């Protein structure tokens, strides 16, 4: 096993703990935005697709990578937009609403 791989496994395991610890006791109200925001964040896979779309030498790989960029971008852009829309619709109340 290479050193990089071992480091990657460290990153994987520690990030899993981090993700879990960050998210204990989330109020139920935020379950949907959290899910859709987190999913939009997983659209960061776009950078992997970008590298391949810019650097591949074969046509097939380019097609796959370009499609990958498209799907991931749709996920990022749409996901963060829809989360923002949901969060924007939550109003605290108490003060009079127009």
């Amino acid at each position, binding site marked *: 096993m290479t050193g990089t791989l071992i480091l990657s496994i460290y990153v994987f395991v520690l990030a899993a703990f981090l993700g879990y610890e960050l998210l204990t006791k989330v109020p139920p109200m935020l*379950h949907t935005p959290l899910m859709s925001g987190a999913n939009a964040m997983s659209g*960061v896979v776009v950078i992997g697709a970008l590298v391949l779309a810019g650097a591949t030498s074969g046509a097939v790989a380019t097609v796959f990578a370009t499609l990958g960029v498209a799907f991931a971008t749709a*996920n990022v852009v749409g996901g963060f937009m829809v989360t923002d829309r949901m969060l924007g619709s939550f109003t605290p109340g108490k003060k009079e609403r127009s």
Partner: protein
Amino acid sequence: MSAEEITQLAYLVPVALFVLGIKRLARVRTARTGNLILASGVLVAVVITLVEMGLVNYTWMVLGLAAGGTVGVITVLRASATSMPQVVARFNGFSGAAAALVGLALFWEEVVFPDAGEGAIGLMGAMAGLALAVSVVIGAATLSGSILAEAKLWGRLSRLTRVPGRGPLVVGASILTVVAMALSLSLVDVRHAALAILFLLLFSLAVGFFAVAPVGGADMPVMISLLNSVSGLAVAASGFAIGNTMLIMGGIIVGAAGLMLTQIMCVAMNRTLWSVFAGGLDEVASGEGDSYENVVGSDPEEAAMVLEAARNVVIVPGYGLAAARAQQPAADLADALAEQGVQVRFAIHPVAGRMPGHMNVVLAEANVPYDRLVEMERVNSDFPNVDLVIVVGANDVVNPAANQASGSPIAGMPILDVENARRVMVVKRSLSPGYAGIKNELFERDHCTMLFGDAKQVLEDLVREFRAGVPTP
């Protein structure tokens, strides 16, 4: 320091933004900024990547970004508040698809195109090769599972839950997946390896399809959050395959978040993940033949008079409210009551609706302030003090059978104890059972009356009658 090392260091910035963003997204006051921080994290990651790549051919990248951006914006603009579960399911599928495509592109780039007379394991190393195959498998399964989940949420394909022999189908597709995985990684002839990985894609799609097929109705929140979790794992697998720490971290944080939500949903239903996948509930307990006695029907006019006497009202929304798009009249009813000085609250069951937090999103869209929403644990002890409970389109989550001894398929499931309130009104289309398929004795209780009809229509009538009967402020 090499350019690659600088890039790796620079990725610490978006990683930190992710951690900060998720942390803020989990608090009500800071959620919106948290979301923006997450978005800026992805943007920074993209910029760093582009800078590191230097001058390359941008044609395909720009094409992909433009097409994807357009699809994303259009999807959101066309979505309504009630179709949020569908939108979330679709975006889940998108990230799965992206992870699978990254795996495929990498396979063609590293193995098929060079045609080096060596298999994937020889060229990429066993771990990277395995990660590549795993990202294709999980990504594709997430894609087909999410498409099916979305179709189910639109109300199509609901009969799929009763497909016979689906167990063997899942097992069979899984075995074929493993075989195709081994072949695609080990075959030396690249044409055969390419064929094998395409079969791998096909079998993985089948696994996702057959796994989600039996899940439906009230189990949907569990399914949606699980799909969310695995889409993160697919991204983390792509990260391993291309050796990108950013993807590993981003993916696994999403995976952990989704898993935590899945766990919350399972606890809220008193169901194990396994039983959700097995599909449906025990057939033995099916109560379709059960008949109801002493059910008291009512009409909006009569109900409005009951409302006028109530000082403490709790509204219990369920999926039926979202399906009938009755959130606005429900919000109007709450406003009308509040104007008369009545204490009015919405009691939210954790799995009401079709995704985690569904009711919160639907009611927020109708401008119900969130301090009017109360969680199950906090309202249950208070029901004896409540004059009137109005149940709108919910069934299993208020079924007292859950509190009784075992034997009922929902025994042990935490419910809203609305039967303890002084009066209960149930707005429902008919006496048909909920997802659990069992009789709800609540409907027969002396202090329970039924308002049959479309939830939106009934609530609108109720608001009108109520407003007509009380002095306007």
